């Protein structure tokens, strides 16, 4: 529905943060010895960024909507990875078959199981751990860190202390080769999955009533309640969905690294925090751009000067915050 009228003012997308991705990529081009290497690194950076986005998107929404900085988010990543590993190891035959469809048929239940378990644990975590400390930031940090440590220890009890090898499915090993350019097949899949998650989140947030409620709740949850909506129910749904996405990210990350260990979620949380701060806390679009920037910078710097790879992302965060102190796409909060 729209009222009659011509030439109405409309919202314009801020394209400057979007332009950062090609700017960073092109800035790296003269520093990389060859074009094929640059293309390979760029593809690797985008794939890594997509996987970080999948893991980070739930956390940024949880923070924006509920004002909860959940340090235990990494636990859902790890649990998702372990659950998927159990499923994939049980389905060894289709995973090792030289057929893409059989491989995908094995990965699909692994992903679904990982998301279901991570989502259900997120639901329980919100109810038991987070709900008593809403609005108490110091307690949130302490109790969610505690939750992360407990979850890691439970994983050690259930799956043991050894690192578990998780070979990629047969059809996803190797690379697409074009001349001197080689792009790993799995990275192409990661890019498609990341784009699909982003598109789904964008559609839900921009085209549905639930999305409208989430966006409004991120800005001013009290006003949403004053309009007659029980925002707590939306909180719980977003927490569970964010945890499920962390589980999906954990599966993708584990297959990318081809191993799982109990500290993997904790290790990737540093990058996730950098991404959601760069993007603007609570902004899914900002999280997407921030993740791609972090992925690209990590790969370029990892190639050029491996010793300063992590430091380069912290430097990137500092530069972005000097330019835009609220992040690339700040969320208007009451």
């Amino acid at each position: 529905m729209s009222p009659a009228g011509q030439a109405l003012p409309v919202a314009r997308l801020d394209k400057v943060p979007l332009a950062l991705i090609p700017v960073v990529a092109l800035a790296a081009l003269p520093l990389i010895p060859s074009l094929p290497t640059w293309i390979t690194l760029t593809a690797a950076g985008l794939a890594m960024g997509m996987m970080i986005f999948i893991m980070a998107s739930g956390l940024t929404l949880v923070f924006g909507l509920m004002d909860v900085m959940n340090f235990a988010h990494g636990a859902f990543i790890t649990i998702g990875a372990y659950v998927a590993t159990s499923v994939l190891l049980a389905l060894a035959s289709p995973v090792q078959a030289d057929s893409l469809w059989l491989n995908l048929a094995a990965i699909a239940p692994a992903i679904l199981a990982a998301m279901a378990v991570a989502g259900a644990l997120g639901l329980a975590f919100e109810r038991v751990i987070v709900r008593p400390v809403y609005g108490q930031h110091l307690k949130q940090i302490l109790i969610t860190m505690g939750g992360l440590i407990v979850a890691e220890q439970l994983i050690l009890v259930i799956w043991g202390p050894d690192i578990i090898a998780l070979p990629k499915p047969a059809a996803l090993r190797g690379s697409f080769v074009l001349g001197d350019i080689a792009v790993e097949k799995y990275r192409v899949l990661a890019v498609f999955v990341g784009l699909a998650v982003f598109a789904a989140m964008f559609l839900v947030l921009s085209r549905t009533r639930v999305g409208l409620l989430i966006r409004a709740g991120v800005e001013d949850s009290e006003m949403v309640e004053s309009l007659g909506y029980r925002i707590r129910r939306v909180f719980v749904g977003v927490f569970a969905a964010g945890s499920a996405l962390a589980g999906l990210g954990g599966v993708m990350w584990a297959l990318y690294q081809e191993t799982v260990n109990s500290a993997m979620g904790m290790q990737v949380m540093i990058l996730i925090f950098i991404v959601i701060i760069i993007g603007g806390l609570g902004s899914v679009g900002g999280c997407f751009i921030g993740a791609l920037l972090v992925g690209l910078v990590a790969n370029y710097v990892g190639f050029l000067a491996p010793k300063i790879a992590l430091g380069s992302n912290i430097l990137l965060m500092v530069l972005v915050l000097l330019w835009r102190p609220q992040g690339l796409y700040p969320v208007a909060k009451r």
Partner: protein
Amino acid sequence: MSSLLALAGVNTHIGHYHILQGVDFAVPQGGLTMLLGRNGAGKTTCLRTIMGLWKASAGRIDFDGADISGRPTPAVAQLGIGYVPESMGIFAGLTVRENLALAARSGPIDARRLDWLFGLFPALKKFWQLPAGHLSGGQKQMLAIARAMIEPRKLLLVDEPTKGLAPAIIAHMVEAFRELKRSDTTILLVEQNFNFARALGDTVAVMDSGRIVHSGSMAELAGDEALQHKLLGLSLDAHQ
């Protein structure tokens, strides 16, 4: 005239502070009641307590024959109470259309009601697809009121709608509230601008230090300058 809303002995504590200290007043059905008072008198706390945003520590709030004290905010709103906070509470990142669509709880926005609101606030039609954060202060206030009225409400609570607005916009607001009154909506309006209050109010309640210190007809207060000065003091002088 029967009361749509009645507060009896309402107390509200915020942390260690005892803000409302036994508030008693009634809002007659179909009229516009002004809640006046100096800064810090407890007017905003009163509205927030009615909405359930702060819990009353004692007392009773009756709305449409039912005790609503202690009910959660969404349940209070669902009874048919629209609320426009002092901050206006618009969602800056949502468009004008989305702000209104969100407030239409029962489904799509009713086209006739929307036309009626566009008649009251034409700027909303012009900026329909613009994020609300881009609107001017007066336009944001119009959006906040339109949002509260996008569906028929039994009671509209409005907190200082003229705050920070230019005189021309305030004159427009007076006309808009007169039209809202004609639509049979009961209104409780917190205000510090006595001229605005005098132009609109049917009844008035004056607060001081967390209590109602005067209630009656607006015409009576408007005609008694000594009483105005006694009750409102400096806040009245500022708007003369």
